[in-house]
């Protein structure tokens, strides 16, 4: 029965599209990039970003479509952004008229990477521990709808294909994967078109299932915008990363770490060391090397100077091939004392993958809360997908059941035809059509009464 309903759900929902894949990301990243402009403090940088919003948002799209352009892997993808920065340092590139557009594109790209690494080590594990239902990035997009109201990407796509080819060539990409640079532009366009269609389909899915996603994740739906590493926080972190990159592009010094959770002078979300919000997360604009962090690299002390033991680890490292990251986390060995002041100190040292050095002590001071700031909002009831399914099945039921009228009309129109000569056959056909129509109506009612959960579940976990 479940399989049958799933198939029906698939037919109903994707009658004019194809099943979705994993992520909605582009719209959310694009939105964060747009929000981050308002947090940029350097006037020249803010002016450049405002003048090149489309390039910025196009850049924010880059990491996801680059992944789809197999065989880009995550390691390659991260090393790519470093090569992009080296490319932007070239005098002949800096002399070009479209240099500001390229810079905006690059910042959008880098912002996406930083946001992913940051959210995946803080907010996402926390959501999993609170709401237990976070399955995919797609869900974030569904939650975003409540805040963003509209689902538009608002971007005139900017694709510096010749520059990307030059950057990829500098990394030996085409030789390594036996690809032809002459076909690269066409391949990119094919991948992006597929992604664009997928993204648009996910909008409809998100529109119809956002209530359901919020009912599964009531905490996230209420706090997605303001939570640590939520959308606003991510926008601030992105802006801080851009400031450092902007300084580097102008050969000026930039701080090694650009953002933290908790903020310097702020308050921790929970003292529970088992929660991702009970760790201290630092964001750098350098790719850090996991092997360069030692037990004495970071020290956590309370107001009396007592050291709290713990360990530092890069957030996104899952395998030896991924031994670099923009995010490092300090995890205390035990929960911190509620209502106490703490200081995290990072000792000077070489932490960057390319030998980048933290030249001075880096410190953040923060308080732990008296109690975890976790509320439990009431889940809301979703109905949109159920109504949508009913709007499909009810007319279909009318069409099929109404077929009995067509049989009658056929008999009257051809009084000597087969149906008129065999009244049993005509009556049988009429009954079959009426029963089939009733069955379709029942299926529509089932989806209406169950809020289309079977369709949503299938769409969420459909293979791609």
């Amino acid at each position, binding site marked *: 029965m479940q399989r049958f309903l799933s198939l029906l759900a698939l037919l109903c929902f994707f*009658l*004019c*599209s194809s099943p979705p894949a994993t992520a909605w990301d582009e719209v959310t990243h694009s939105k964060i990039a747009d929000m981050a402009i308002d947090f940029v403090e350097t006037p020249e940088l803010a002016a450049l970003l405002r003048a090149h919003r489309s390039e910025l948002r196009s850049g924010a799209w880059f990491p996801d479509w680059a992944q789809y352009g197999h065989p880009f892997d995550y390691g390659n993808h991260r090393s790519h952004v470093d090569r992009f920065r080296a490319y932007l340092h070239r005098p002949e590139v800096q002399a070009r008229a479209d240099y500001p557009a390229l810079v905006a594109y690059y910042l959008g790209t880098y912002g996406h990477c930083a946001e992913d690494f940051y959210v995946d080590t803080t907010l996402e594990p926390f959501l999993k521990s609170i709401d237990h239902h976070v399955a995919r990035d797609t869900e974030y997009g569904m939650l975003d709808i409540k805040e963003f109201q*509209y*689902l*538009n990407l608002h971007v005139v*796509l900017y694709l510096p294909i010749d520059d990307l080819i030059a950057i990829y060539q500098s990394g030996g990409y085409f030789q390594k994967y036996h690809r032809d640079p002459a076909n690269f532009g066409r391949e990119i366009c094919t991948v*992006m*078109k597929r992604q*664009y*269609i997928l993204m*648009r*389909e996910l*909008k*409809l899915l998100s*529109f119809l299932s956002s209530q359901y996603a919020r009912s599964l994740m009531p905490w996230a739906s209420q706090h997605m915008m303001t939570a640590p590493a939520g959308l606003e926080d991510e926008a601030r972190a992105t802006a801080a990363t851009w400031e450092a990159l902007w300084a580097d592009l102008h050969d000026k010094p930039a701080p090694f770490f650009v953002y933290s959770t908790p903020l310097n002078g702020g308050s921790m979300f929970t003292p529970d060391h088992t929660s991702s919000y009970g760790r201290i997360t630092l964001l750098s604009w350098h790719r850090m090397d996991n092997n360069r962090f030692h037990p004495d690299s970071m020290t956590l002390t309370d107001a009396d100077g007592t050291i709290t033991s713990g360990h530092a680890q890069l957030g996104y490292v899952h395998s030896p091939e991924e031994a670099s990251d923009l995010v490092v986390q300090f995890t205390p060995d035990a929960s911190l004392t509620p209502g106490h002041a703490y200081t995290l100190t990072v000792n000077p040292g070489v932490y960057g993958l390319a030998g980048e050095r933290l030249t001075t002590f880096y410190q953040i001071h923060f308080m732990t809360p008296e109690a975890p700031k976790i509320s439990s909002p009431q889940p809301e009831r979703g109905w949109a997908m159920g109504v949508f399914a009913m*709007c*499909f099945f*009810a*007319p*279909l*039921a*009318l*069409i*099929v*059941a*109404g*077929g*009995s*009228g*067509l*049989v*009658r*009309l056929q008999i*009257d*129109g051809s009084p000597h035809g087969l149906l008129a000569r065999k009244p049993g056959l005509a009556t049988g056909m009429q009954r079959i059509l009426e029963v089939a129509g009733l069955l379709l109506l029942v299926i529509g009612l089932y989806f209406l009464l169950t809020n289309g959960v079977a369709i949503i579940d299938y769409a969420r976990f459909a293979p791609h």
Partner: protein
Amino acid sequence: MGDDVLMGRPAAIAVLLLILGTVVLIARWKAQRRMAAQGKHRIYRGVLIQAIGFYLLAGFFGFIAAFFAITR
């Protein structure tokens, strides 16, 4: 990019359903006239219901096409 597929396909289906609804309505009207000429009065309620179904389903696909048009 891709809009032609996303909006075009459901829009085409919606137009097709509108045509189908109209065709069955015309067929019903013609049959009623023919039967009336024979002194018989037929309503063909089923065909009317079917036409309504076609129009409603056209609205469903029209909604999908409109959604993709608005959110582009």
